[in-house]
């Protein structure tokens, strides 16, 4: 499953740039703090404008570093949430596919063929992979469509796409309102809905 619309790479690059900035700015901040400290030791009072400006710069730099750190943490947690969502979707999709196959009483060979149909292989390619005649694959495919009550390849695939889209919708609301476990468990009623459709 390739979900190209997640800009994961861009986010990762952003995180790296942010980390680099934090490093440089953090070291500069410490340099200024050290400089203020030693100037103050030499001089003894804070009222000279040079020292005052330097102190302000030091404070601003430190605040900036803390701010950037918080920003980086937020970005990282967004990236990790996204990954969790994808993991759930991936894992969940596999469960759903398996359950559907079981429910339709597909034979072992039919399950293999069905998975390859889902992956977009045509009958000839499937026959080559499975080392059988393409007539056999055609018969198996017909049996799969009959058992799943779909009238062909396109509708067969759309059964799963539908579930995936509905699943994402649920993930979003589940992630907002409930703890993570509930995201998993509260799928059962919806899945029953889907079974009625098929």
């Amino acid at each position: 499953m390739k979900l190209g619309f997640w800009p994961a790479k861009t986010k990762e690059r952003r995180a790296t740039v942010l980390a680099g900035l934090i490093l440089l700015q953090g070291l500069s901040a410490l340099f200024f703090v050290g400089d203020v400290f030693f100037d103050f030791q030499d001089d003894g009072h804070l009222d000279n404008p040079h020292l005052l400006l330097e102190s302000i710069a030091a404070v601003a730099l430190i605040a900036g570093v803390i701010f950037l750190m918080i920003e980086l943490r937020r970005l990282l947690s967004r990236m990790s949430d996204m990954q969790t969502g994808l993991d759930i979707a991936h894992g969940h999709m596999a469960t759903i596919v398996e359950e559907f196959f079981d429910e339709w009483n597909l034979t072992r060979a039919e399950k293999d063929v069905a998975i390859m149909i889902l992956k977009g292989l045509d009958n000839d390619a499937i026959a080559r992979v499975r080392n059988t005649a393409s007539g056999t694959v055609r018969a198996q495919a017909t049996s799969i469509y009959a058992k799943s009550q779909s009238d062909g390849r396109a509708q067969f695939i759309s059964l799963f796409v539908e579930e995936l889209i509905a699943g994402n919708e649920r993930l979003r609301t589940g992630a907002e309102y409930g703890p993570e476990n509930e995201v998993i468990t509260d799928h059962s009623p919806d899945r029953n809905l889907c079974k009625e459709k098929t």
Partner: protein
Amino acid sequence: MVAIEQRTSGRASAREVAVWDPLVRLIHWSLALTILLNGAIVEEESKAHEWIGYIALGLVALRLIWALIGPKHARFSAFPPSPARAFRHLRAMVGGEKTVHLSHNPLGALMVYNIWASVIAVGVTGYMMTTITFFGVEWVEEAHEVIFGWLLISVALHVAGVAFDTWWSGVNLVRAMINGRKTIPEGREVQ
């Protein structure tokens, strides 16, 4: 999050988990570079040696702040300095257990604190040598050198530990510190 990863793990043969954020990695390799530069390349008693020392101190300071406000695996709470945990970990390893730790393992955690403390001690004694009060004072110079020696031993142990754990747990730790991800072998318990 870990719970969900474990649930999906049954299906995937091996899975990748992002553990080290870019800031942790940058600080790690920068610190390694400063130790290498000051220990082997830059001349002692040069200005550059002093500055690199201050940078090393700054890196540790930043890492400590990050351990307070950073993400989960970078925080102190992910790797508390606990000899008891380290001992339990050691005993579990002797018993043949190959649990994967997402952050530092308990033994590694002790090494982390040891290295940070050593760098701070070397940096502080190094700074003291530049002050008028302590300039030329013998015990300060000796402490600076002895602690740096200890730091080198620690780094060697650290590298050996990484090599051992990579072999033992099957998770390539060096790669994890470069691209940030640990690849966890199938069916392995995760902490």
